[in-house]
């Protein structure tokens, strides 16, 4: 028998290879670009700046929601309530702002000054976030059940307030301003600018702050995170409040843009937000993913819808095309990640 006496030499590690997350994000970006170029070949007039801008401006709402949803997913929690919150805050802002003496129930509101009305509507939205946090953190109910429930509760309240329909009369002049404010003399509106700001802030939080890090740790292993001194309850509560606040603002802006509080607004948006996050490489089990990935996940879907519209395809084809595009994007991701980690 041979016994070698040397101890393996220690090496200092400094170089960091491209992390899995950056890798996936890069892939998603490439997939989005490739899809855009393909569409440009197939659809007349597709390759133009305005069309690229549309991809973003058309989807500001769902991308904004995606930010909150992504953070929660990374922390290992779902938020399916955002679509409902969009409807709720929009309806509330209208109801609060409608003047008091209307001809019928749906044209009679509380007559609050506009800014008080939207502040209260935002509070209403965040109450749903608080409810999410309460059930998830305090009662330990799985987030998917909770947020499915609060989604229905939020939309349900909106439906009760609008009798299942909408409120759009008796509104003060300034109600339509925020959602229709053109910025810097371009065709870009305030909501889109806010979305871009939100993304920048989110990326900073995600990459550079302790708060962002904690989100990953909680998502990777909630028990270990708690035992490592991270206040999980507080963190998850912040995330839910954060997500519902975003959804609340989105709802208020949409209500302002369309000058109506519509109880079916944002229907299925929670799913769109989930899909773009997953498409952007966020792991459904938590602990992995990025806001930038989510953003480009949204772009992938937007390219498909936009191209289908340009071709005036019937909805039947739209569904099929969307399925194929998502399938390809996901297969490439899964395959590339597996190869890399083999």
């Amino acid at each position, binding site marked *: 028998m041979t016994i070698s006496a040397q101890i393996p030499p220690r090496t200092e590690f400094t170089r960091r290879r491209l992390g899995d997350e950056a890798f996936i994000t890069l892939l998603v970006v490439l997939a989005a670009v490739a899809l855009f170029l393909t569409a440009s070949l197939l659809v007349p007039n597709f390759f133009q700046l305005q069309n690229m801008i549309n991809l973003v401006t058309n989807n500001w709402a769902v991308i904004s929601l995606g930010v909150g949803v992504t953070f929660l997913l990374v922390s290992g929690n779902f938020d399916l309530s955002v679509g409902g919150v969009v409807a709720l805050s929009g309806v509330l802002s209208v109801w609060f702002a409608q003047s008091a003496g209307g001809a019928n129930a749906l044209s009679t509101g509380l007559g609050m000054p506009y800014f008080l009305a939207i502040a209260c509507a935002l509070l209403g939205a965040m109450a749903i976030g608080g409810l999410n946090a309460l059930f998830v953190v305090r009662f330990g109910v799985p987030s998917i059940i*909770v947020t499915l429930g609060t989604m229905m509760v939020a939309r349900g309240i909106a439906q009760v307030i609008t009798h299942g329909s909408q409120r759009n009369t008796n509104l003060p002049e300034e109600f339509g301003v925020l959602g229709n404010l053109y910025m810097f003399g371009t065709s870009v509106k305030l909501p889109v600018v806010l979305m871009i700001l939100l993304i920048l802030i989110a990326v900073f939080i995600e990459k550079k702050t302790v708060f962002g890090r904690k989100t990953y740790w909680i998502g990777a292993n909630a028990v270990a995170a708690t035992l490592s001194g991270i206040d999980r309850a507080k963190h998850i509560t912040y995330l839910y409040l954060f997500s519902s606040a975003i959804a609340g603002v989105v709802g208020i802006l949409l209500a302002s843009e369309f000058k109506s509080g519509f109880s079916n607004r944002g229907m299925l948006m929670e799913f769109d937000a989930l899909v773009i996050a997953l498409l952007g490489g966020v792991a459904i089990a938590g602990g992995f993913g990025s806001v930038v990935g989510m953003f480009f996940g949204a772009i992938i879907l937007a390219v498909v819808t936009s191209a289908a519209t340009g071709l005036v395809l019937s909805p039947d084809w739209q*569904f*099929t095309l969307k399925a194929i595009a998502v399938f390809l994007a996901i297969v490439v991701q899964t395959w590339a990640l597996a190869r890399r980690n083999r």
Partner: protein
Amino acid sequence: MSQPTAISQGPTDRNGRIARFLRDYYIYFVFVAVIAVLSVANLDQFTLFERGNFLNKYNIINILRVSAPLITLAGAFTLLMVSGYIDLSVGSAMSLSAVVYALLAINGVPFLPAFVATVAVGVVLGTINGFLVVRLKITPVIATLITLSLYKGIALLLVQDGVSAIKSGGGLKMPAWFNDYGREGVLLSLPMAFWVAILVTLVLIIVQKRTLIGKYAAATGGNPTAAKLSGIKTGKIVWVLYGIVGVTAALAGIARSSFMSLGDPLSGDGMELTVILVVLLGGTAFSGGEGRVSKSFVAALIIMSLTVGMLTLVPAYYQTLVIGSALLLAAASNHIVSKKGKSS
């Protein structure tokens, strides 16, 4: 030799047993409570079993009849979720099956062959899901969102442009028998579709309790690595379960299609959410491992009773709020109770 120390039978044991009892049977209490509330809700206007009140024959028949698709789906969906997987495409698979079944029927294929062929289509749809998830290793949520879109797209493509569903017209006529399966009372005034739903549920209860598939599904959902290292072919189990869900989606599609006398490519829209609602209400763990077919069955009855029962009681726009609140309350009480049961 001294008594081993490990399991301490504390004074909390009795509380624990009560808690466990509550946990195991809570869904039945919820059911009874819902029925009771709905039955007394408009006693001021109608007496207990009178037409107009909840507990009248017609109402009960209606509820059970329209519950058939949901009941059919809930059991298989429960098993799939117990194994830690999910199928968001059930609604679309159901729509596609409804369209296929109606297409066959309207083109002169007799009942039995049309029925069998549609079920076969269901198997194929489920198998495709299984393939994406097991072979291509795509996250179940994504994989089945893809097929949700795909199956719906195909269902829409199978229906002519400018028409909403497969129905009589353009020289074709739905055969007279088409409506019987989903509507015509065969036993206790309830149609075949309902009895098939019951049969499916019973079979799945047995599958869950008495067969390898049932046990392996729980193992796969509870601890996939352990299951694999124990020599269980988890991929195969999952694949089979997706197949079963596909079959039930087809059965649900046939029931719905027959009930409505048409092949509507949107008839299953949103069904995935309803089924998830039901299965979660029944106490199935989203993360897998836990869940009972029988409880999902009761949960399906609860949801359908609520939706139908409320129709004449309150304006329709209260429905979402009531069901959402019910889900939250049920889930919270279930989890609080079951946690008590565990910590004892």
